[in-house]
C-alpha cells in the first residue's frame, strides 16, 4: 500500500451562525494515496470547493483535522501552514491567477523564489518545457492563450516538487480542446511524475481522466469509486447518485 498523502478526520466547516448557519462540510473522512489522481464532483454548493480550501490550508475547519504528508494542519501556525503550502502543495486555479506583470518563467518560479531557491529560474524553465511551453518562456500572461496560461499555472504548481496538487475547476475557464489538454496534463502529473492530484470539476468528461471519483452532496461524500479511463463512467456515477 502506498503512502497516505491526504487524510481528513471528521472534517466540518460551518459558515454563519443562528438561522443563517450553513454547514458546508459535515464530518468528511477522506484518504488519498500518493500518486493518485482524484476527481471531486457534485452540484454547486455541495462543499467540494470548501473541501479543497481546507485541504490546502487556505481555510480553517470548524472541527476535525487535515493531515498532509504526516503534518496535521491543526498543529501548525499560520506561518508554518504558509510554508507547507509553499513546499508541499501546488495549486491550480480556475482563473489561472498568474501575475500579469511577470513572464511565464517568473510566474512558474514564484514559489521557488519565495523559498529562496537559487535554482528557481532553471527549475521553472525545466517544468515549463515539460508542460510544452519551452518556446514561451519569456512571454507574459497576456501574450498566452488560456490553455497556455493554465499550463504555466501547472508548471508553477509543480516547480517546488510538491506531494499534492490541488486543482479547483482547472478547466472551467477553457475551451473544450484546451480543457482536454489540461486534463491530460494533470493525468500525466500523476502517472508520469508521480504526484498526487486532487481536482474539483463540474465536467464528467474531464473527471474521466482521473483514477478515482469522489461524489459529494450537501457537505457529505455520497460515493467514492475507482475509475478505469472510461469516458462515460463519471456521468454514469453522477446519474446513479442522482446528482444530474
Amino acid at each position, binding site marked *: 500500500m502506498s503512502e497516505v498523502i491526504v487524510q481528513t478526520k471528521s472534517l466540518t466547516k460551518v459558515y454563519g451562525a443562528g438561522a443563517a448557519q450553513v454547514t458546508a462540510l459535515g464530518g468528511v473522512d477522506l484518504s488519498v494515496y500518493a500518486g493518485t489522481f482524484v476527481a471531486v464532483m457534485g452540484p454547486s454548493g455541495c462543499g467540494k470547493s470548501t473541501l479543497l480550501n481546507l485541504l*490546502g490550508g487556505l481555510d480553517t475547519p470548524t472541527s476535525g483535522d487535515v493531515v498532509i504528508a504526516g503534518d496535521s494542519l491543526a498543529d501548525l501556525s499560520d*506561518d508554518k501552514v504558509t510554508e507547507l*503550502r509553499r513546499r508541499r502543495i*501546488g495549486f491550480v486555479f480556475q482563473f489561472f491567477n498568474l501575475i*500579469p506583470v511577470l513572464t511565464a518563467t517568473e510566474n512558474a518560479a*514564484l514559489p521557488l*523564489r519565495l*523559498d529562496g531557491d537559487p535554482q528557481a529560474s532553471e527549475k521553472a524553465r525545466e517544468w515549463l518545457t515539460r508542460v510544452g511551453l519551452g518556446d514561451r518562456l519569456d512571454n507574459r500572461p497576456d501574450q498566452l492563450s488560456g490553455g497556455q496560461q493554465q499550463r504555466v499555472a501547472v508548471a508553477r*504548481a509543480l516547480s517546488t516538487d510538491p506531494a499534492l496538487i490541488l486543482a479547483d475547476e482547472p478547466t472551467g475557464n477553457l475551451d473544450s480542446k484546451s480543457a482536454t489538454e489540461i486534463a491530460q496534463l494533470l493525468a500525466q502529473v500523476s502517472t508520469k511524475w508521480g504526484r498526487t492530484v486532487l481536482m474539483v470539476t463540474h465536467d464528467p468528461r474531464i473527471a474521466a481522466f482521473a483514477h478515482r471519483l469522489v461524489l459529494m452532496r450537501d457537505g457529505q461524500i455520497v460515493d467514492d469509486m475507482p475509475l478505469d479511463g472510461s469516458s462515460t463512467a463519471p456521468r454514469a456515477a453522477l446519474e446513479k447518485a442522482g446528482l444530474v
Partner: protein
Amino acid sequence: MIFTLAWRYWRGRGLRSLLTALAVVCGVMLTFGLNGVTPTLTKAFEKNMLNASGKTDLSVAEKSGQTFPASVADELAAIPGIAAVSPYLQQPAPLPKRPVSDPSVNALAQVTVVGIVPDKAARVRDYTVSAGRMITAGDAAAMVANSDVAGQLGLTLGDTLELPAAAGVVKFRLVGILSGTTMPGEEQVVVSLSAAQQLFGAGARINAIDATFSDGTDRAQVEQLVKARLSDKYTIGGLTSNSSLLSSMEMASTAFMMFGLFAMATAAFIILNSFRMLVAERRRDVGMLRAIGMKRRTVVGMFLVESLFQGVVGTGLGLLAGWGMASGIFVLMAPITKDLMHIDLGGPIFTPETWAVSIILGVGVTILAAVLPARAAGKVTPMEAMRPQVGEKYTKDMRRRGWIGLGILVVSLFGLFSRDSGLVGLASVLVLVAIALAVPAVVIPVADVAIKPLQAVFGREGPIARSNIQRNPGRSGVTVTAVMLGMAAIVGMITVINSIFTGYLAYLDKSMSSDYLVIPSSIVLSQGNVAAGPGLARQLGETPGIAAVSTLRVGQGQVGGLDVQVIGIDPAKYLDVASLEWNTGSSDNAVRQLASGRWVIANGIYASSNALTPGQAIVLDTPNGLRTYYLAGIGNDYLNAKLATLYTSQENLQRDFNVADDLLVMANRAANADPDTVTARVQRVVAGYPAFNLYEPDTWKAEQSAIFDMSMIMFYVLIAALAVPSLLALINTLSISVLARTREIGMLRAVGATRRQVKRMVLAESLLLSLIGTVVGAAAGVILGYALVLALSAIGWEMPYSFPTAGIVTATVVGIAFGMIASSGPAKSASRLNVVDALHHE
C-alpha cells in the same frame, strides 16, 4: 523577489503610477523649491547689506589700523568654516584739484583707494561690472569704480585719474564701471592689490581681510577659532548671527516648509487612496501569492517596496520640478529686486538640509501613506484566489471615526480661537485631520443634499452618480478630503494674504502720509542703508513751500542679547508728517512722551514676543553701555512692521547710540504752496544726495503696490501648486471608480444606457465629489484663515480680517473646473468600453 514583483507592478501601472507620483512631485517640489529660494535670498540680501555697510561675515584688521603681513590671510583661510578670504589694502588718497569748468567734477576732495586681489575679492563681495571690464591681478594702472563715483570724479571709461603716490603721481585708467551705489563719504576706487601697495609704499602688506563663512557654519564657533588662531593685536568684526534679517529669513524658511508639508499631506491622501485601490484590484493576485506560500509580512513588504519606488520616482521628479520652480521664481523676482531693491539675485541654492528634508519627506510620506493599505493586503486570505474578482471592501467603522473626528473638531476650535500662535498652528492641523476623519461618515447624507443643485443638469444620471459615491464612502471620503485640503489652502491663504496686504496698505497710508519721502535706494532692509548727515533735512526744511520736515534715524541695540533696531524720531515733528498704527491701549500721546526721557515705543511683533506692557522697563544694551528705557506704547509703521523695532527720540538715539544721521526724511508742503514749484525745489535738493530717492506718496504707493502685485503672482503660483494635488486625487478616484465598475458599466450599456449617458454619469460623480470637497474646503479655509489672522494679530502683527470672498469664488470655480477636467479621461474610457468585454470583466 518582492523587489522584482513590486517594480513590475509599479511599471505595469503606467500612467496611474505617474499620476500618483505627481502628487508626491507637488509636495517635494514645494518643499525643495521654496527652500532653495530662501538661502539665495538670504545670501543676496546679506551680500547687498554687506556691500552697503562695508561688512562681511568676518573682517580682520590690526587694532591700531596699521598694515600687517599678507600671510595672515592664508592663516585665516586655513581655519575650518572659512569659505573665502580677501586680503586688501585700503587707504584714503587726496584728490588734486582739476582745472575744469564744471564745479561738480571737483565735488570730491578725497577718494578711498582699495587694492584687492580680484579673484579672491570676487568670492567675498559683489563686484558686478556694468560696463567695461574688471581689473586683473596684474593691472598696474587700471581701476574700476561705481558709476556714481565715476560721475563725481567726472570720469568715463578710458579716462585716467591721477593719484598722489608715495613718490610722485600715479595715473590710473578707468577700465570698468561697477553696478551699485555708494554711500556718501565712502567713495572708492578699486585697483589691484599690488598697485595699491606700490601707490602707498606698503611693500607686501595689507591692512584688512574680509572673509565669508561656509554654508551652515556656526558663526560663533568660527569666530572663536579665528580669535584663537590670530594674536590679540587683531580686531575681529562681522555680522551678528541673530540679526533681524537672518531671523526673518528663518521665518520665511519655516513658512515655506509649511507649504511643503501641506502639499505632502494632500499627497498622502492620494497615495493612500491609490494603494487602497491597488490592494482591491490585486486581491486575487495576493490571494494566489498567499496560496502558493507567500507570508503575510512578505505581502506587506511587497506593497511597501512598491510605495518606495513610487516615492523615489516622485521625489526625484519633485526635486527636478523644485529646481525648475526655484529658478522660475528667480526669473520672476530678479527684475523686481534689481529695480526696486537694487539687489542682484543669483540662482537657487539647495543646502544639504533641504536635500535631506525633501527626500525624507517625499519618500517617507509615500511609504507611510501606503502602510495601511499594505497591512490590509497582508490580511487578504488565500481563498481570494479562488473567487472571481470582487470590488473594494470597506469594513471600517466609519461612524466611530466620524464621532472621533467631530470630537477633535470641537476641541481644535478652542485652540483655533485661542489667539496663541502655537496653539493655532496645532489646531489648524487638527481641524484638517478631524474633517478627514469625519468626511466618510457624512458623505452619504451630504451627497443627498449636494445632488440637488446637480439634479437639474443631470436628471437621470445624477442619482446613479450619487449612489456610486455613497456605496463606497471610504473612497469618496478620501477624495473629498484631498479636494478639501486643496480648497482650504486656497481660501485660507487668500484670507491671510488679503488681510496682510490690506493691513499693509493701511499702514502705508497712515505712516507714509507725508507729501514727500526721501528714502535710500534699499530702504526695504533697515540694516546697511545709507544715512544722510543733517544737511538733507536742514536743506529741505529751508526749502520755500515746505511746512514741516521730520526724519527717521536708525541705531542698533540689543535687549537680552538679541538685536533690536532702534528708530529715532523727532517727537515734536513726527506726528505732523506721519503716524503710527497703534495697538489697543496706545495712542499719539506715546510719541509725545518720548521727549520726556528714556522712553520707547515698541512695535507689535517686538512687544508681543517679549510680552511687553506700557510702563515696563527695558534694559537696552547700547554702544555706550546698558541703559534703562520705559515703554510708552505699542505701535507699528509700514517699513518696520516685521522687524523687531523700538522707537525713541532722536535725542536719546544720539546720546546713547551715537546716531545723528537721517535714514529717511519726510516733508509736507505748506497749505498754500504750489505743488509743482515745491516739488521742483525738493528735487534739486535731493539731487545732491545721489544715494537717496525722492518719492511722492502716489509714486511710492504705486511702487509698493507693484511689489505686492509681483508677490501675489508668486503666491498664486504657490496656491496653484497646492491645489494641483486635489485635481490628481479626483482623477485618481474617478479612474479607479470606473475601473472597479467596469462590469456594471457594461451592464448599463447592455440594458440601454447610451455612451453619452455613461459619460454624464462619470461627470456627475466627479462634479459631486469636487462640489462636496469644495464646500467643506471653503468652510475649513474660512475657519483657518480667520484663526491665522487672529494668531498673527496676537503676535503683534495687527491686521484687519478680510473675508475671502475672492478666495471662495476662486475655490468654487477651481473646484468645478477640476471636477470637469478630472472626469474627462475616465468618462471617455467608461463610454468607450466594449459591452461584451465589460460584462466579462472580473
